[in-house]
């Protein structure tokens, strides 16, 4: 099962220098890039071991495009969780909603998420989802080594190296981009995506308590949004390049930033 999110297309959002606000014309929505690695890994597991890949996303109606896109790259089926009650959700509420949907599907062995989204960047849904389902969790998986006999052995990235972890199934993992290179869609996949029926599950269908989803179900909320101020107080050196190089070192030494003669 692969959980994915549709995010705005360019994380590099332009800021109009005069008004200090976002310029957002014509930015297409895309599948969160890290989630494409999750989907690809799911498809690879299916190719190696058999099984079925289901993609799930919680989002507004246009998130359906993202789900069709992942059907064209190998997902067998997709489900959209969409309801105005889900809006404004923080990661706790999002995980709760996803967990209800996954429990409704009953059969699952491996749940794969991308390591974080490019808009929220929190990386929290994966681990929180695991707790709500009551199953183990491994983060930052960079390679799935083997799946056998109800267990999965993975390699995961930490700051100073890699760990090899064995986890019983079912389990939730988040993956990093080092894990694979996502494939392009195939013509047959695109045809399947066009004609696929993607059910939309609302809060009612999930039997979700309105106080556990969306803004009501969120423990945190955003109270302020602002644009980071960049104060420029640097110096662009002038003159011929060699002079600049020498001057740079002199200045750094003078400011005691580097040691010197």
């Amino acid at each position, binding site marked *: 099962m692969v959980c994915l999110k549709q995010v705005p297309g360019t*994380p*590099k*959002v332009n*800021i109009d220098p005069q008004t200090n606000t*976002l310029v*957002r014309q014509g930015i297409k929505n895309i599948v969160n890039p890290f989630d494409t690695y999750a989907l690809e890994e799911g498809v690879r597991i299916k190719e190696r071991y058999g099984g079925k890949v289901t993609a799930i996303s919680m989002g*507004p*109606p*246009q998130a359906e495009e993202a789900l069709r896109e992942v059907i064209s790259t190998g997902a067998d089926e997709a489900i959209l969780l969409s309801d105005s009650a889900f*809006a404004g959700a923080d*990661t*706790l509420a999002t*995980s709760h909603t996803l967990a209800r949907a996954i429990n409704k599907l009953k059969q699952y062995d491996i749940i794969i998420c991308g390591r974080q989204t490019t808009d*929220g*960047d*929190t990386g*929290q849904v*994966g*681990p*929180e*989802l695991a*707790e709500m389902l009551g199953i*183990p969790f*491994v*983060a*930052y998986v960079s390679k799935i080594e083997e799946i056998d006999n109800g267990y999965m052995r993975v390699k995961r990235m*930490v*700051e*100073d*190296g890699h*760990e*090899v*972890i*064995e*986890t019983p199934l079912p389990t939730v993992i988040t993956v990093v981009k080092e894990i694979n290179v996502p494939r392009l869609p195939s013509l047959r996949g695109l045809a399947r995506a066009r004609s696929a029926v993607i059910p939309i599950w609302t809060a009612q269908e999930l039997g979700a308590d309105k106080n556990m989803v969306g*803004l009501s179900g969120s*423990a*945190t*909320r*955003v*109270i*302020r*949004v602002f*644009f980071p101020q*960049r104060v*420029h*107080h*640097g*110096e662009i*050196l002038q003159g011929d*390049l*060699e002079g*600049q*190089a*020498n001057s*740079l*070192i002199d200045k*750094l030494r003078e400011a005691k*930033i*580097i040691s010197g003669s």
Partner: protein
Amino acid sequence: MGIQIDLDKCVGCGECLSSCPFGLLEIIAEKVYLREGCTLCGACQEACDYQAILIEAAAEAPAASDSYRGVWVFAEQRNGKLKSVAYELLSRGRQLADTLGTELCVICFGHGINEAQQLIAYGADKVYLMDAPALSSNQDDLYTKGLVELIEKYKPEIVIAGATSLGRSFIPRVAAILKTGLTADCTGLEIDPETGLLLQTRPTFGGNIMATIICQTKRPQMSTVRPRVFKKGTPDGRRKGQVIRVDFNKQRITSRTKLLSFIDDITEAVKLEDANIIVSGGRGVGKAENFQLLEELAGVMGAALGSSRPPVDDGWVSYSHQVGQTGKTVCPKLYIACGISGAVQHLAGMQTSEAIVAINDDPNAPIFDVATYGIVGDLFKVVPMIIKKLKND
């Protein structure tokens, strides 16, 4: 509860359109309409001069339980030695605790840890220490259950931890079990003078937008913070505090996952996070072999080698050198960026460096906006000149 646009008051001036961080507002027939996806952040309400946008506050939530007191810092360790981020958070935690007039406790899991006194010197009032061989490697399950038990027992109002690969993987699980709010990767923590709530500021959209978040009613309020965001304070050996040893009961706390082995991949001589000087390369370096020039400069300066994301993606250097949003956050005394354009995602990882030098042949590269000193020129000419000057002097 929610957001409403009063179309009678709306004059269709469009001021709110550019204020929405998600671009959800649009003008149709001279009135403003809102698309799906609103997070009720209120930016548009602030931007509107005609009070046409109304965001109803959430129904009066029950007051947060006053029985939650205290600021906790989770101190991460590797092989019995505490990581620097633990001390950085401890210093900030001390300031938060002082503002709230409450105690600061440090939670430490591991094996063979003997820095408890040092933690007190750096500001802890209490150190809860759970020391057992099973805890020597960072097993998520054990840490999760252990921390949840302690929180349920002692009820802190604030818990902060490092946003390291460990922190980002087990702290969310703790938050989910406790059904409380967690804000990841905070770059700022303040106490709201009116409400006493923790104001958690973090970057979103790759750092293009900053958001301030609160956890109004659920407790504890939890945050993870990136290493090198806060500065380590100075220890005071005279400080007094309590070290409380917590029993690790094997029956109660078990792990479903098993750590089979640890592969030490790090090969660089000077560790990136600890380096005082970092020489870093970006797409402008051109190809893998060219990094040797930067390595030479790093060698002459006793610096570590860093990289922005593109060279790592293209395989010119390994991921352990990557600085930025999805790499490491560094805060050296001197950061020399060669052939790095200065995309927001990279700046997020190094802009708090004390001094930044940028070398790039594009005078419009955003890196120059944050550089203390900038040289507009071909790095393949400039870097050898710098090396020559350093060697000759």
